[in-house]
């Protein structure tokens, strides 16, 4: 082995589920297996600022991450994990200031201080509006929260990355490499411009802040292009630092980023193929020294089936370890310096991305381009193109639209045993423990802390110190968020779907034409045009499926009502009634389908709308699909049903059969 190997990147696995206790055990066992950093997945109520006993949290507690309602939860999560020695990445955004406060308060309980902490709060709201969906507050208030966290940590937690600008989620929502670069940069600029407005930020501080901004990128299967994308971003970032912010310190100008490799391309069909995809994608962001990631998270082979079990995550961890410790890739200088192929591709990406970035800046920047739906529309369009290419076979996905012939995979013989099932009792237990916490805390102190928080937010002073005090005083996640909700209000980001679909003019395939003719035919039999409601119940932010179903439904000539993500079953039933739809399609990927879909079906029945057929799509394990059908759902679709035109044809069947005279 060569003596001067580079140090490997931080090796992490994104995880958390059920409860603080269960997640703590998982973290400790992952660390024991050689993982070198932690990456916390919170559940959706925590991410959207609700306590576990809030009505909107029903069915979601502990499902896709760990519920953290108060300081005792946080302390339990890191039991026997010394925070001053750990590097922790927290995927938390709208409520980032609060979770960081809990983290700091926990570190203090452990006898440490904020100065010693290393890690990252994701804290990137723009991409929440565009892709990830756990936004709460309007853009202006969100930018304020972000800039206050930046201002606070630069002095009080100087080794903490207060914000991680994410292009990862943009690719997961369909972005091309150029869009990934351009929108991430526009986003970073909107944050830095905002921070710079603060009078206390002088040139020296701005330079340090610039150096603390980190990025979170994606890496897809076209791994050569992805490597060049990373090189292009590195250059563009330094360019922006120099030209826009007058930064000269080379160390500060260096783009620092972590990567999670692409999950959107991981398939339900022949899921073992994903093992290879993941390894190749990891290679793309580690192979070239100049474009090597600082930390890496790999999804698991059963990504499209459901949540990974510890063994599934271990395989991903081992993949990283083989790459880092067995191969020779850490022994060399950059392998591609001087390659004119790499240079040319990088330059092309760079110049196209610069143009797209300029388009957004000319519009008024990232926040404006969120509010007017420009970026979102572009993402939906790109995703529509991608799916059309898969449908037509132009883009080959092995095992999905080509080479489907297969023997039974031994990996999935166990059926629903091949994924992690969160125990249904987790929610109840978490609620009980929350009640116990509320009873044992000093409620006077908690109320005092909440009043102080309210005054501070209204005064415009930095929210961090009072939030840390509130964490210590026993305030809960829901209470902290409630104060801010009352002052800032709430915001729903535009869906971008109407505009994207209007611009999607293209040659319709013969299949699409055939379905159009059927829609016309059924519509004339119905007496009015076939109308579908596409609904997203619960806190689930996965909008891709719903968006693409909506675009395709319109494309085949249906009238489509799509109101965006995060609706309650009641709101969906109300829409269905008001709009007089012929069919309802629910899309749900967060794992809470059993509770929420059944709720919609029952409420429809109670409202006298029981005759409207309901179809469901998303991450629905086979057993659950049967359960949903028993509850009255007509059809269930999962990622293996990649042919959207065919899905439309079946929807026409459903309506047609029901209305046969």
């Amino acid at each position, binding site marked *: 082995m060569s003596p001067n190997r580079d140090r490997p990147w931080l090796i992490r696995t994104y995880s958390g589920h059920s409860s603080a206790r269960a997640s703590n055990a998982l973290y400790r066992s992952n660390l024991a297996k050689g993982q070198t950093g932690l990456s916390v997945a919170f559940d959706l109520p925590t991410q959207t600022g609700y306590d576990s006993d809030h009505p909107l949290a029903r069915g979601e507690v502990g499902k896709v991450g760990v519920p953290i309602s108060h300081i005792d939860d946080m302390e339990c999560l890191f039991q026997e994990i010394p925070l001053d020695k750990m590097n922790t990445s927290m995927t938390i955004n709208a409520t980032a200031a609060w979770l960081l406060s809990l983290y700091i308060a926990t570190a203090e309980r452990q006898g440490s201080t904020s100065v010693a902490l290393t890690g990252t709060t994701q804290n990137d709201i723009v991409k929440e509006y565009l892709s990830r969906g756990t936004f709460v507050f309007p853009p202006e208030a969100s930018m304020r929260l972000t800039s206050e966290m930046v201002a606070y940590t630069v002095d009080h937690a100087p080794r903490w990355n207060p914000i991680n600008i994410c292009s990862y989620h943009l690719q997961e929502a369909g972005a091309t490499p150029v869009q990934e670069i351009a929108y991430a940069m526009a986003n970073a600029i909107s944050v830095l411009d905002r921070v710079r407005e603060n009078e206390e930020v002088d040139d020296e501080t701005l330079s340090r802040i610039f150096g603390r901004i980190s990025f979170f990128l994606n890496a897809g299967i076209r791994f050569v292009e992805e490597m060049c994308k990373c090189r292009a971003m590195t250059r563009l970032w330094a360019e922006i630092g120099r030209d826009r912010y007058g930064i000269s310190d080379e160390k500060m100008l260096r783009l620092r980023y972590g990567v999670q490799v692409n999950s959107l391309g991981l398939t339900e069909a022949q899921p073992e193929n994903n093992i290879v995809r993941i390894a190749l994608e990891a290679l793309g962001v580690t192979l070239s020294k100049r474009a090597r990631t600082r930390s890496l998270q790999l999804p698991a082979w059963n990504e499209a089936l459901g949540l990974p079990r510890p063994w599934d995550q271990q395989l991903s961890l081992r993949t990283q370890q083989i790459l880092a410790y067995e191969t020779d890739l850490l022994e060399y200088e950059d392998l591609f310096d001087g390659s004119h192929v790499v240079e040319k591709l990088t330059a092309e990406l760079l110049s196209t991305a610069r143009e797209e970035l300029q388009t957004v800046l000319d519009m008024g920047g990232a926040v404006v381009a969120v509010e007017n739906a420009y970026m979102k529309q572009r993402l939906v369009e790109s995703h529509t193109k991608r799916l059309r290419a898969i449908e037509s076979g132009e883009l080959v996905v092995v095992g999905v639209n080509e080479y489907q012939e297969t023997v039974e995979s031994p990996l999935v013989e166990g059926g629903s045993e091949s994924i992690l099932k969160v125990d249904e009792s987790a929610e109840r237990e978490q609620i009980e423990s929350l009640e116990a916490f509320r009873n044992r805390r000093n409620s006077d102190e908690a109320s005092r802390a909440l009043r102080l928080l309210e005054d501070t937010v209204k005064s415009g002073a930095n929210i961090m110190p009072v939030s840390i005090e509130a964490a210590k005083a026993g305030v809960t996640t829901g209470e902290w968020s409630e104060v801010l909700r009352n002052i800032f209000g709430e915001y729903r980001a535009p869906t971008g779907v*109407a505009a994207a679909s209007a611009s999607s003019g293209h040659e319709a395939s013969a299949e699409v034409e055939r379905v159009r003719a059927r*829609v016309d035919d059924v519509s004339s039999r119905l007496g*009015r045009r076939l109308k579908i409601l596409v609904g997203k119940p619960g806190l689930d932010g996965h909008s891709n499926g719903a968006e693409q179903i909506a675009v395709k439904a319109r494309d085949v000539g249906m*009238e489509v009502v799509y109101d965006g993500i995060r609706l309650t079953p009641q709101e969906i039933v109300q829409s269905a*009634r*008001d709009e007089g739809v012929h069919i309802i399609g629910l899309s749900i990927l967060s794992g809470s389908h059993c509770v929420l879909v059944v709720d919609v079906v029952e409420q429809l029945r109670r409202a006298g709308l029981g005759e409207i057929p309901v179809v469901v799509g998303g991450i629905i394990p086979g057993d659950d699909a049967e359960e949903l059908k028993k509850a009255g759902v007509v059809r269930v679709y999962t990622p293996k049903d990649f042919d959207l035109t065919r899905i439309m044809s079946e929807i026409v069947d459903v309506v047609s059969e029901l209305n046969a005279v």
Partner: protein
Amino acid sequence: MQSEPPNDPEHALAAAVTRGDLGSLSEALNQIDDDRPENREAALALLDAIEGHSRSPRIGVTGAPGAGKSTLLDALVAGLRERDRSIGILAVDPSSQRTGGALLGDRMRLSSSARDSGVFLRSLAARDQLGGLSEITGASLDLMQAAFDIVFVETVGVGQSEAGVIDIVDSLIFVAQPASGDLIQFMKAGILEWPDIFFVNKSDLGDAARRTSAELKAGLQLGGRRDPDYTPKVLCGSARDALGIDELLEAIDEHQQYLESSGQGDIRRTSGRAARVRNTLMTRFGRYGLERLTGPFEVETYVGEKSHSSVERLADELGLRIMKELGRDVA
């Protein structure tokens, strides 16, 4: 106004609509949208049964795409719910395409607090006609008016294209983008002619909103208004931040009172009904067909006398008349 309604399904449904039963309203809206000839009579009976039943204000909200109409409606709904009024909203979507498909996505702007039992929102794809409002828009608003304390229709329009909305509403609000143009452009577009209230939106963005209001006010003094006796209000506010909403609600009330006391309200409704019948006949039979109607069958005269029949019924009756005349022409 009406005696005990007869006991047939259309009247039962009409009665449920006027009671404000939202499920029934939805069913009724579906029924009148049904274009199968065999179901036409039921739809007409339904519309006849609710005709003239309600005097609830009918308000149009128009303006360029992106001006903030939907956001403004959301803010208005919040204000009206505080005043305990039930609200119906008809959102007309301009984006339908050749295939007939349409994406009706504006609901996302109605905040969840607004989605209680006192609020109803139906979206309609503006199909059939070139730019104008389809016949079904007016009929849908008629039904909704019977069910709610106040109804709104959101349509996209700039200037002359407002003409169609005018026929189906009492008061028209124009939502203006700040700095959307200088005075000359407003006048060229004919924007100053129709609206009763101007709401210059996005005042949170700075001074442009105030400048735009000043220009509009100046322009209105130049005359050229549909109703020379009423000077439209020009308001300025922010739909996003709910600024100027109380003033807007007041302006709506005030205009409604003016319509009542001046008698303009009745005049507008009668002429609006006639215009709708005329438009429908025009679409179906063209100018040549329309000119076959004479004497007591002249559209305005006929509609004026039959105030208890729905617009759709009258259009069908006169349509039959035209067909007869056309048949005679041929013979």
